[in-house]
């Protein structure tokens, strides 16, 4: 192997490692991107806005247990990948029209973590109910 080959090999392996790290390493400081529902009176729906653009912002949504929830998903793109939203625990599969806000109403849920994803499970977010 000549020098170029050594450089390409080392560079390639480093790149592969970087890809794995970038996409799979647990994200530090995740707490910073937590969306929290404004507190509301008992029984009234709590409401959170989520922007859908290559992912969900915020991706972690803190909710109060025992209260119905309104999630307002605003899809700011027309890539097919984010066209569908799944919240499997609530049996929800909903289309999110591009450049529009889609409101999803959830019944009051017990404490727990409920993931939500795009139609193919690549974009991820979660509802943390406490």
């Amino acid at each position: 192997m000549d020098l170029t080959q050594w450089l390409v090999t080392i560079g390639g392996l480093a790149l592969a490692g970087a890809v794995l790290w970038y996409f799979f390493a647990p994200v530090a400081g995740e707490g910073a991107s937590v969306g929290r529902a404004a507190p509301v009176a008992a029984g009234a729906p709590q409401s959170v806005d989520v922007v859908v653009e290559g992912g969900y912002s915020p991706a972690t949504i803190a909710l109060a247990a025992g209260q119905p929830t309104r999630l307002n998903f605003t899809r700011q793109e027309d890539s097919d990948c984010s066209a569908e939203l799944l919240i499997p625990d609530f049996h929800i599969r909903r289309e999110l029209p591009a450049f529009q806000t889609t409101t999803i109403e959830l019944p009051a849920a017990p404490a727990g973590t409920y993931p939500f994803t795009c139609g193919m499970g690549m974009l991820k977010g979660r509802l943390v109910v406490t």
Partner: protein
Amino acid sequence: MTSPEPAPTPTTTATLPIEGMTCASCANFVQRALTKTPGVRTASVNYATEKATVEFDPAAVSPAGLRAAVEGAGYGVGPEPAAPPAQSGGAAQPAAEAADTTDARKAAAYAALRRRFWVAAALTAVVMPLSMLAMTDWAMARVPMAALNWLLLVLTLPVLLYSGRSFFVAAWKTFRHRTATMDTLVAVGTGAAFLYSLLATVAPGWLTRRGVPADVYYDTTATIITLILLGKLLEARAKARTGEAIKKLVGLGAKTARVVRPDGSEVEVAIGQLQIGDEVAVRPGEKIATDGVVLTGASAVNEAMLTGESLPVEKSAGDEVFGATLNTTGALRFRVTKVGADTLLASIVRLVEDAQGSRAPIQRLADRVSGIFVPVVVVIAVLAFVAWFDLSPAGQRLPMALQAFVAVLIIACPCALGLATPTAIMVGTGRAAARGILIRSAESLERAYAVNTVLLDKTGTLTKGEPAVTDFSPLPGQDGAHLLALAAAVERHSEHPLAQAVVRYAEATATPRLDAAVADFQAHTGRGAGATVAGQAVLIGSERLLTEAGVTIPPAVRAATDRLRADARTVLLLAVDGQPVGVFGVADVVRDSSAEAVARLHQMGLDVVMLPGDNATTAAAIARQVGITRTFADALPADKAGKVAELQAEGRIVAMVGDGLNDAPALARADVGLAVGTGTDVAAEAAGITLLRGEVGGVAEAIDLSRRTMRVIRQNLFFAFIYNALGIPIAAGVLYPVTGWLLSPMIAAAAMALSSVSVLTNSLRLRGNA
């Protein structure tokens, strides 16, 4: 937009469109300004949606005060957006309108996609032959390569920047979220091929000086984008059809109703304005607007769109009617009992949507794979690049490595994996709903697939559920027609189902009516009835009724009653002026379709077992008629769940067919519960599947459809896994040392475009009949 909350506290929530925010810290600033305003309880400002949600005490601060607070902070409040459609009232109606606008938007998106495809296709049609021409010796000798490369660059740029732009934009956006999707693969694959070509065009000398051929891959770039757009186009078309069934259901709802005013006049109102308690008139040929109870009139109503039952159902005063069904022959007036989201149609739509949103357990592996799929493919592509770079001959190392790198990225198809299960479930549950079979979730579908034993509860599913006279024997020397007329005259005054059976029998045999001559009618609860008809004392009822009235039962009558009881008939005795004169045999009759349906279940390899209900002899007789060989001899109605468990203990996977309300424990205990209901109990929680047609034929159909859906899912998943498991290594070049195959990225793009379309097309097969 202000909307009072139904909360016990006297606060109001308002959403204000905020203008002038340029960054996230602006949002914080506005939020602080609002929160500090007296009377505001909470405020949250979203930078992305440019909206502030404020909860405030309307007694302390007005919406104008909120506006002032925002403006005081240096921002503006925009005009209020139009109010969204009201949640209450005719929910099916706004849903239909929403579906219309969604359709329009989808059509626009589809048109845009098609435009992008055609631009790409047209340019590729020029780029491809030019690139091939450039490789011929004839062209190499005559055409200056540099000029040709510049021409190809100019032709490829629009493909990349117009047709393919969305891949790059989406890939960048997901990258920032530390996720990767199909867009990532396309963007990196085409981007790599394009950037190398760009370098070879702009600075060919820089490459050749380093011993690298200054080849261009514009044809690869353009072809990949064109083929993937073609795949998306086909996919969008097929996908739209997977949701057709539910769209059809939503579209069934009536748009207007003819309400009868107290003064008797009729006015046409929009469906959303209909109130519970309104009286609605329906003419022949009109759609019934919503759910209600018939007040006057008689007609046959076609309910096929909801229940799948092809024969029209007779309706008269007191019967339930359902919105979206079609009135055929007569005029009806009905009282509205349900509107909007509470109607049967709305519950069906909700149930089907719910099922389509559920995930099948079989999908779990595919989900786990697609979650990590794209980054893993990128790593494989990088490793393939390195391997080819290290192992190829010096002059060929970069082109070979690049080709493998791009081919791996492009052939990988996470979409086929992601579409395999949900599309089949959407088509399967939609098809089922159109046949009056409501499947609660993908999981029930998956469990129905494995069923090998069907436990039937006799009543309702196999029989018509109403008794009918099967035998009438007058004693020798009596005038049968006259006796029947006497009996019917008495029974017409009784509400009892057995009495109604006698009346129907008399009417069916065109017996003359003696109604005017009836006097002194008396009902003897649990035993029968009596009256004086045309001066004759008539008694009809059980043996006990006659004995108590002092009538002696002669041996000939006793022999007749014993014979009927042995045949599982209920016996009614008729006495006139204190003398027994005739015997009726009454039984619940078997539906014509039951034997055929049971035979079909047997044919499907299912064991059919029957629960006897409260009369073992009757049950045995019915079982004989429909061809069921196994019945439980001694089950009490309360012990149905126990019988389900007993069958499960034999290692069977049991589908219990029963009444949604009364058999809930047994339905829940079974591996799959099939509730036979007529509309009202659609939401029976215990059942995984609800049959809107009250007959056993639906059971066979439901199980058959589950089996076909699961078969399609398995085929799809197998195909998607195999496709990727074979495609990716071949694209990486593992076959090269053996066969010399190295996949062209263009072939990879074609394969990828076809793979997700194949999965979709396979799912769409479920729309047809078996």
